């Protein structure tokens, strides 16, 4: 059963190697990519089952005991995120395969890079020590640099440069933080560190905590470290933006949750993090309201909603963490869906600028429905999954956050309304009004139309909307699972025992 733990990132790496070997066979690559991602989803589901049965599962790679060797850990939080990411990665792979257009131009690059990205994302969720976490981020980001600059245009090269340099800066800071943590404690194993950071002088401890907050804050696009995201994500091919938006920032949020709860636990809400969360929500939604490019609107919505997850973490209560976990799951699915729908909108009209989009509701009612459901969900309209996740966060904020917690809950509610306003703006401009004159003739029109027509990509997008709705159906078990996950994050003993003492209490 322990062999299950490394499978989610060993499988796609193997797939990437195979894909490189047969990079000239477009059709075979599509089959290979899909088969390997189905394998990833299967192995993560089996891992979820194992974690549900046995609690935290830890594997010491090459058999060296815990603080010395490389440790891989799967607990409730990472198992849940692995399954959700696996499903989203598979859906977007199917979307790319069904589209057959742009990805067919450079399939020999797209498929290996995509599979490596999958491996990196899975390794982030499984890493049990800081240095391994750094390597996982590098694997994930290195393939994302390649994916972002696929089929280069001038705009894409510039966005790629911004994105690469900002990511690398945060990676260098990450590496320095790992070095400093090692200098202060003599270990990089997360479970081992969780015991030793408590003995550090308070100054060293908060300096390390802040450094990690900045490192993951840049990667997660927390305001004021978000400026790179809306400038770079929209330039990529839309399906790639969908993967990035769904998973890369969320991997950073996951790492932030993991490091802060394990290394720097506290009993009260963290003021700086509450302030950052509020700023992220407000700046993000106001940005979404100001933008004209549809992808930029969605990118700012992404920034805003990172604030919700940070809010849940900043409360440092079980309820807050549970809310943040629910929000992570909801947002991974819904953000990917929104980007996929925006790609379909772009194919149908040849436009992605809101001032030139129009008349979509008359032409294709199905696309309108596909957009409306995730748009309402991300704004938090009941009974969709956004409402369930927001409700959990609001209850946590009002329940235990004190005056500041209640204030940020107010900000979060306002952000929900502003998101609704941004989404309504897209709805009225793109769907409801008649097509403006000159629409469809913009120079930024999508380069290549999908080869197999709209049917396959619409089916995949509809399936993604369906999985968003499934989150509502499963809201009960999902809430219970995230409460248990949050409980074990706050408690820490199960995690430490599994890593350091082979599962038994010391």
């Amino acid at each position, binding site marked *: 059963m322990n062999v299950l733990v490394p499978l989610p990132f060993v499988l796609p790496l193997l797939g990437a190697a195979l894909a490189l070997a047969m990079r000239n066979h477009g059709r075979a690559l599509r089959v290979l990519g899909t088969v390997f991602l189905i394998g990833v989803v299967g192995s993560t589901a089996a891992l979820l089952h194992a974690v549900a049965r046995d609690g935290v599962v830890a594997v010491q790679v090459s058999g060296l005991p815990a603080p010395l060797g490389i440790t891989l850990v799967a607990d409730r939080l990472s198992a849940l995120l692995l399954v959700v990411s696996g499903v989203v990665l598979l859906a977007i792979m199917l979307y790319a395969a069904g589209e057959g257009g742009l990805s067919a131009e450079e399939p020999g690059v797209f498929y290996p890079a995509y599979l490596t990205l999958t491996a990196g994302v899975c390794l982030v969720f499984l890493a049990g020590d800081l240095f391994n976490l750094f390597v996982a981020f590098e694997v994930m980001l290195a393939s994302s640099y390649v994916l972002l600059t696929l089929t280069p245009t001038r705009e894409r090269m*510039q966005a790629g440069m911004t994105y690469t*340099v900002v990511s690398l800066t945060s990676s260098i800071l990450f590496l320095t933080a790992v070095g400093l943590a090692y200098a202060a404690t003599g270990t990089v194993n997360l479970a081992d560190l969780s015991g030793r950071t408590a003995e550090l002088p308070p100054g060293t401890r908060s300096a390390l905590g802040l450094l990690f907050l900045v490192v993951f804050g840049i990667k997660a696009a927390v305001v004021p470290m978000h400026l790179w995201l809306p400038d770079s994500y929209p330039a990529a091919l839309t399906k790639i933006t969908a993967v990035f938006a769904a998973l890369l920032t969320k991997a950073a949020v996951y790492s932030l949750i993991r490091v802060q709860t394990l290394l720097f636990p506290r009993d009260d809400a963290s003021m700086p993090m509450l302030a950052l969360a509020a700023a992220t929500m407000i700046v993000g939604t106001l940005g979404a309201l100001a933008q004209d490019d549809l992808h930029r609107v969605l990118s700012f919505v992404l920034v805003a909603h990172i604030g919700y997850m940070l809010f849940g973490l900043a409360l440092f209560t079980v309820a807050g963490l549970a809310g943040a976990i629910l929000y992570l799951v909801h947002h991974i699915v819904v953000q990917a869906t929104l980007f996929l729908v925006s790609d379909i909108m772009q194919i149908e009209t040849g436009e992605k600028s809101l001032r030139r989009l129009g008349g979509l509701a008359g032409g294709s009612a199905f696309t309108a429905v596909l957009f409306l459901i995730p748009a309402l969900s991300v704004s938090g309209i009941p009974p969709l999954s956004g409402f369930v996740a927001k409700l959990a966060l609001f209850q946590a904020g009002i329940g235990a956050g004190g005056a500041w917690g209640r204030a940020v809950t107010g900000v979060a509610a306002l952000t929900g309304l502003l998101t609704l306003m941004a989404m309504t703006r897209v709805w009225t401009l793109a769907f409801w009004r008649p097509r403006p004159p000159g629409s469809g003739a913009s120079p930024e029109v999508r380069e290549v139309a999908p080869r197999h027509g709209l049917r396959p990509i619409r089916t995949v997008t509809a399936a993604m909307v369906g999985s968003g709705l499934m989150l509502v159906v499963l809201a009960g078990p999902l809430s219970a699972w995230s409460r248990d996950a949050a409980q074990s994050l706050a408690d820490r003993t199960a995690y430490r025992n599994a890593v350091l003492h082979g599962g038994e209490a010391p």
Partner: protein
Amino acid sequence: MTGAAISLVIAVGVLFAVGFDLLLQRSLIRVVVGFVLLGHGANLALLLAGGAGGRAPLLGGGDDRPAADPLPQAMALTAIVITFGVTAFLLALAYRSVLMQDDDEVRDDLEDRRVGRDREDEE
């Protein structure tokens, strides 16, 4: 802390300062050089994290002096490989952007400027 360690600490500080300064310039090649310097700084910091130096950490060296901590060395090696690969990618990116726009300056973002101009027009 020995004199050698202190001079290394100062070197880390200088590398970080120069690296971040270069990173903020408009010319892409300076950005790449800045990143390389930052990488060196971070790797030196990693090495310093291992504490005092010593003999090579090999089994059966036949030497009684205390061995140096091998873990930061292993981490620095991995980090060097990663920064090497990424630097190659950055250089390729900079070269591509020279080919595409005839200079290696980072431009202002067009969409940002357009949104800003729209707001001014409305006022």
